[in-house]
């Protein structure tokens, strides 16, 4: 047992020094055996005793200071000299070695002096033993060598950028020193290394980019840019601290992308427009990926995209316009609306194709970004509201839909393809300002299809459903009413026929099929007061009898121009020639005219006109269709040429022959008066604006003009783009009609007058 006398400082210290010396020899790589458990315990115990001795033999403070001194001395003696003359790789290697040593040293020494950590250090809130070691290293080694080390590191990184292979682990390990000497913070790493790294990186890429932008095409440049970014990311993963990543990439993005963005995009043969022109989807995708990294980087790309799409669209417009004009000049008669062959119709098809093409771009290249959807929308809105040969896009779309929807209108497409095409065309409606104009044209075409029974029901319903979803129920209200009317008419007809059975004179009256149309839903038709032959009058009044029976207080207005009649025609008088033909006449007028000839074989036009009370121009058209075309049912007397006039005389063509039993007699269809449709829509708009203003003012009571305008425009946006001036005019009109008045206290505000 040892005596209980306290260990004197120097004595104890002497023993420690021996341990320290041993440690140093190990660190210097000399041939020295490792510490064994016994020695370790001895050293530990010396410290323990010297710290637990009663004062004045409690040497904690001295030991603590001397512990620090051990490091300082060793560093001065061995470490600093070792690092002194090295440069670059050698420096880094030696630094790394010395750092490792230092850690070993700290580990061992702090174990020996461990007791200090437990009580003395915590009681006096001093740096822990390992921190003491670290601080010594930091203040003596690190501060001396940091600049040289940094330069060495940057040189290595530069070499690696130029393609040389460097020792990644070494760099990582040295950077670890920078991180560790910062203790709780990243200050040392950031200030002594990272800052300069970022500057060097910027300078490096500035140089490179300047050369690339002068020599390379845009796609090639972008490939290089992408490669650089990838490389720098790898670099971070290999040896830099993760927090450096965004800062580093920012430098690269700035020098490589932001600085030269405009130049790149505008490159003559390889910039954005060229890429779009040449369908370089992969390059465009890369462009999107790269420029989405910088804030606002995509705006010029989207703008270029919009410009390009708009230009393509305008080209379509101009070409179609020119083609239509050329045809007109060549004197060819314009084909009937809806044949699908003329330039206007193919224009709609081309617009659909254009839309498909560029929508795909947005999805594939531009990652479905809303910025590009917006650009696409704006481009289409710009050219979809232009006119082709005086016809609005609204009309062309309605005509094209008519071609697709008409039975037999687009046979070569096939059922499913028609459905798909309809869907696409209706989607284009979103770009139209004059949606209500489209609705009006569509309604007119729909009525003709319905009345001529040329509908394919599932397509019609598909379109109506789509219109309703896109534009609201108000948009399709009338159209649905029309379809409904005809469905009811079918049911009604059956009921009518059953009712007829029960009537006394059934069998003597001519067969008649009636469709009752609700006035508000259908386009307005010219009504003529036609004096019908008696047989027809009887039929009509029979239906009227049925209808009055069934309903109350309803007035029937007959539209003869829409009726069809089948007439049995026996041209010859002679008994042995009893050929008869069925004349399928496309209007009731034909019947009325022809039946006149039952009473007299020859008739003057003036007589016919008097008896039928038909206006001359309508009568003229009917007569022409019966005598001036392929099937001459009637013959004109004399040699007159040109359209029938009031002074002509007609007779039955008793020599009429045809190989067909059933003969179609058509009245030429008058193409819709475009001007009238536009006028009607214009009137509707005035009402709609009035209603919107009143609706708004009723709920808000008091509003300024600009607010009224913005409310109204928004409310009506589904139907049409309301014109500011028109709204203002209606406001004034409503003031006149005393729905509104100007606020006396603030003349820019308007009040609702209940």
């Amino acid at each position, binding site marked *: 047992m040892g005596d209980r006398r306290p260990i004197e400082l120097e004595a104890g210290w002497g023993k420690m020094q021996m341990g320290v010396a041993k440690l140093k020899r190990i660190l210097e790589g000399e041939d020295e055996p490792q510490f064994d458990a016994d020695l370790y315990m001895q050293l530990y115990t010396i410290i323990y005793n010297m710290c637990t001795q009663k004062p004045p033999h409690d040497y904690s403070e001295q030991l603590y200071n001397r512990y620090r001194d051990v490091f300082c001395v060793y560093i001065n003696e061995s470490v600093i000299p070792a690092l002194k003359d090295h440069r670059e790789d050698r420096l880094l290697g030696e630094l790394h070695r010395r750092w490792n040593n230092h850690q070993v040293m700290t580990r061992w020494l702090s174990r020996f002096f461990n007791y200090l950590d437990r009580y003395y250090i915590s009681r006096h809130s001093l740096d822990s033993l390992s921190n003491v070691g670290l601080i010594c290293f930091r203040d003596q080694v690190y501060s001396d060598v940091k600049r040289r080390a940094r330069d060495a590191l940057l040189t290595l990184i530069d070499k690696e950028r130029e393609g040389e292979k460097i020792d990644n682990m070494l760099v990582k390990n040295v950077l670890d020193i920078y991180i560790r000497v910062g203790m709780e913070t990243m200050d040392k790493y950031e200030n002594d290394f990272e800052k300069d790294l970022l500057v060097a990186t910027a300078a490096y890429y500035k140089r490179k980019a300047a050369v690339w932008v002068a020599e390379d095409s845009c796609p090639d440049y972008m490939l290089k840019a992408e490669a650089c970014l990838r490389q720098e990311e790898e670099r971070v993963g290999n040896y830099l601290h993760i927090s450096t990543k965004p800062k580093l990439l920012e430098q690269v993005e700035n020098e490589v992308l932001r600085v030269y963005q405009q130049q790149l995009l505008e490159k003559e043969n390889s910039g954005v427009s060229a890429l779009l022109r040449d369908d370089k989807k992969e390059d465009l995708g890369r462009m999107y990926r790269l420029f989405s990294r910088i804030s606002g980087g995509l705006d010029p790309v989207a703008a270029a995209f919009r410009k390009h799409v708009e230009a393509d669209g305008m080209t379509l417009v101009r070409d179609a316009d020119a083609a239509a004009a050329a045809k007109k000049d060549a004197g060819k008669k314009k084909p009937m609306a809806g044949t699908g062959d003329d330039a206007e119709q193919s224009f709609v098809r081309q617009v659909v194709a254009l839309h498909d093409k560029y929508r795909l771009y947005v999805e594939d290249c531009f990652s479905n970004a809303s910025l590009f959807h917006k650009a696409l929308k704006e481009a289409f809105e710009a050219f979809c509201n232009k006119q082709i040969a005086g016809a609005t896009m609204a009309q062309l779309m309605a005509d094209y839909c008519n071609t697709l929807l008409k039975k037999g209108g687009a046979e070569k497409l096939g059922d499913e393809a028609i459905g798909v095409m309809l869907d696409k065309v209706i989607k284009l409606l979103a770009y139209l300002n004059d949606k209500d104009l489209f609705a009006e044209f569509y309604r007119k075409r729909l009525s003709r299809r319905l009345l001529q029974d040329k509908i394919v029901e599932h397509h019609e319903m598909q379109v109506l459903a789509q219109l309703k979803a896109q534009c609201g129920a108000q948009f399709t209200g009338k159209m649905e009413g029309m379809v409904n009317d005809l469905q009811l008419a079918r049911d009604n007809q059956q009921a009518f026929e059953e009712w007829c059975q029960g009537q006394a004179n059934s069998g003597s009256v001519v067969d008649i099929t009636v469709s009752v149309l609700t006035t508000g839903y259908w386009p307005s038709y010219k009504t003529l007061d036609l004096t019908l032959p008696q047989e027809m009058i009887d039929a009509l009044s029979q239906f009227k009898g049925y209808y009055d029976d069934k309903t109350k207080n309803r007035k029937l207005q007959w539209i003869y121009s829409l009726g069809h009649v089948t007439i049995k025609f026996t041209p010859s008088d002679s008994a042995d020639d009893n050929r008869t033909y069925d004349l399928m006449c496309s209007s009731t007028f034909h019947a009325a005219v022809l039946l006149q000839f039952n009473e007299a074989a020859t008739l003057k036009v003036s007589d016919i006109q008097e008896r039928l009370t038909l206006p001359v121009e309508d009568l003229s058209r009917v007569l022409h269709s019966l005598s001036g075309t392929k099937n001459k049912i009637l013959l004109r007397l004399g040699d007159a040429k040109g359209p029938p006039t009031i002074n002509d005389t007609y007779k039955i063509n008793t020599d009429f022959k045809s190989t067909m039993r059933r003969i179609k007699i058509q009245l030429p269809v008058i193409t819709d008066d475009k001007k009238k449709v536009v006028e009607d829509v214009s009137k509707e708009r005035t009402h709609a604006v009035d209603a919107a203003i009143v609706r708004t003012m009723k709920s808000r009571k008091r509003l300024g*003009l600009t607010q009224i305008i913005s409310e109204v425009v928004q409310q009506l946006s589904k139907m049409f783009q309301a014109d500011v001036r028109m709204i203002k005019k209606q406001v*004034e009109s409503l*003031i006149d009609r005393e729905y509104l008045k100007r606020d006396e206290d603030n003349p820019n*505000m308007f009040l609702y007058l209940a």
Partner: protein
Amino acid sequence: MMKRAKKAMGGAANRAAGGSSALFEQYCDPATDEIGPEGVERFCSDINTDPSDRKVLLLAWKMRAKRMGFFSREEFQSGLTALKATTTAQIQRALPGLEEQVECNPDSFRDFCTFAFKYCLTEPSQKLIDIDTAVTMLAIVMPREPLMPRFCDFLKEQTEYKVINFDQWTSFLRFAQEVKPDLSNYRDEDAWPILLDNFVEWGRRNADRPIDFT
């Protein structure tokens, strides 16, 4: 008895009314008990004023006359009472005061302009006055307003509006007060009637045209 009491009570008023009443009877048409065009002419000559003079309109305004060219007994007498005048001489002396009132007091001027418009409405349900009437009236009502001649030129030239409504009339009054003669401070986001927006457009297009003061 009653009659006499009444006469005594209304003495003071009657004394004044007596004056204006007597004056009224000098010009009125006994059949209708109101001063008609012929009487108006004589009256104007007695106060040394031309019937088309602005002062006559001012008088009508003071009287709150309802029908152009006619003064009822009540209108005539209440007007004279307001002027504190019973003789033509007194009336004549009061006229400059009337002009000054309208010149210096913006509320009175506004009231006068409003009256002028309504005074032109001849039919009971009429709400609009035609361009010629408007132009004439504007010249009488605001002869010294720098914008007035140009506005009148414009009204005569433009074809969009054939009649003027009350809102347009009062808005022009406000326009003349707020907007500079060179139209420089006109703001199109203000809710001026379209007529005035058109005027500004026309005015800017014809800025160098000499003003027709006839």
